[in-house]
């Protein structure tokens, strides 16, 4: 992605993401209840909160999978709330999934090629074959997530940890500069988890990242700032140290876990 965005007119190092008074109700439940977020360009911002706090709903709202009932989402100052998902991707915002969502029947390389192709904008060209020009870029993306050796493997045959890497690779290949990473460490073992943390750490400064994660180790290691979501509301935002010290957060969520560190 670095090379791709460097070749465009300006060197993008992430973009700002502003969320103002975002609301989403499901029946009688306010899943997201007036959320404000300020994420700076190049920042790695973690979003934590207990199960059912509305984290996944928030990601779905930001990515465009569902429509908000109220509020605004500003990408570099432009309202993107009314845009469908693929147009948000075109503006540089993409997501990964908590439950792995890849093209299982295709090879790892073909998976990545699709994401690269989507960016090229030649989607409706029907006569000329998709060129081999993508191949170089595919290799580049696979090298970044350390999947080069598995390029020809059918994606559904990968081990879980490898599939999680491919999940991330698909997001990277879109050339986005804002990533919404929904529990990238989900279901990973200790060693695999460390490798994934390394991969995410490399994004720091080069892109804006909103990281949803249950693994507190990872969150405190990676995040520049952390926001805590409880019952659809952001109850605190601050640095790792500030969040640990925040009495309200401790009461609502972290409890002994944070004090023990």
């Amino acid at each position: 992605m670095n090379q791709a965005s460097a070749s465009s007119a300006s060197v993008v190092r992430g973009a700002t993401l502003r969320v103002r008074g975002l609301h989403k109700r499901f029946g009688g439940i306010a899943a997201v209840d007036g959320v404000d977020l300020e994420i700076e360009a190049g920042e790695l911002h973690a979003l934590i909160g207990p199960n059912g706090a509305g984290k996944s709903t928030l990601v779905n709202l930001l990515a465009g999978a569902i429509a908000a009932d109220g509020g605004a989402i500003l990408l570099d100052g432009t309202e993107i709330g009314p845009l469908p998902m693929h147009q948000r991707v075109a503006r540089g915002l993409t997501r990964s999934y908590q439950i792995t969502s890849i093209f299982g029947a295709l090879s790892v390389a073909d998976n990545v090629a699709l994401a690269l192709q989507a960016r090229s904008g030649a989607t409706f060209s029907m006569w000329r074959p998709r060129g081999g020009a993508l191949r170089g870029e595919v290799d580049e993306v696979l090298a970044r997530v350390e999947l080069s050796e598995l390029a020809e493997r059918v994606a559904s045959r990968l081990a879980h940890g490898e599939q999680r890497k491919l999940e991330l690779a698909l997001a990277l290949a879109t050339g986005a500069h804002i990533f919404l990473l929904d529990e990238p460490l989900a279901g990973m073992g200790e060693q695999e988890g460390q490798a994934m943390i390394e991969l995410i750490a490399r994004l720091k400064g080069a892109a804006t990242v909103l990281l949803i994660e249950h693994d507190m180790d990872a969150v405190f290691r990676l995040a520049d700032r952390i926001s805590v979501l409880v019952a659809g509301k952001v109850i605190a935002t601050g640095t790792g140290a500030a969040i640990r010290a925040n009495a309200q957060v401790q009461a609502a969520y972290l409890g002994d876990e944070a004090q023990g560190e």
Partner: protein
Amino acid sequence: MQPRTAILLLVLLAALPPVAAVFDQSFYISVASRILIFALAATSLNLVLGYGGMLSFGHAAFFGTGAYTVAILAQHGVHSAWLAWPLAMLVSALIAWPVGAISLRTRGVYFIMITLAFAQMIYYVFVSLKTYGGDDGLTLAERSSIGLGVDVKGDAHFYYACLAVLALAIVLLARLRRSPFGHALEAVKLNETRAEAIGFPVYRIKLVCFILAAAFAGLAGALIANQNNFVSPGLMHWTQSGMLMVMIIVGGLGHLFGGLIGAAFLLLLEEILSAHTEHWQLALGVILLGIVLFAPHGLARSARRSATPA
């Protein structure tokens, strides 16, 4: 299928009329034309269903629309194939546009039902169109004229016209599936949510595929109108849509030659069985059951598998 196999197939098909003439079996040229036309219709459905993963249950509506376009134009004195056949494609595409635009808002069973409902609506429109024969259908005054020394009033010439059109459609489909659009379509079929999340305009991709397939169904319709010298609402009845579906499921969903193999298999079987018994549909049913059980991925793939044991 290798390009060499495809060319061999084309040569064999091209040799059919002279061979049939030698054995004084010219009747079979007309049977073969019918197979090629249904192969084209089934291939166009294969684009939506096999390559696009959209379970459209109303494809015959576009087939019938193409046929009626040619018949109605003939009624008004327009006989040029160069005018009538592209217009058949255009009219089918224009009708598919709003049908697809609305149907593609739904998913799964709802999509099946809504495409079926639209097709039946179009069917009843033509049933009630008394000016153009209504329920009784409409006879073509004469076949479309191609010019260039081709006289499609002769069965052999018409057969070659059908073969040329089908070959062209299969070449186009072969190109399409390796093109960026073909890959995007595959992405949508395999994982729609993720396709959207990596930036594909999923809805538009599906709609373009739906309209394109309808255009080729319309072209097949233009040919069947000429083949039969007659069109009737029966062409767009839902059972016709079902038969096209059976053809590509038997032939091979998402296989380049699935439509041709399925149409040839089904229509030849119908020809053979109906010569022996009036209960041929029962026998056909048993055979189809056998195929679904023992060759669930279609005949095209089963043939390849037994040729190259993996």
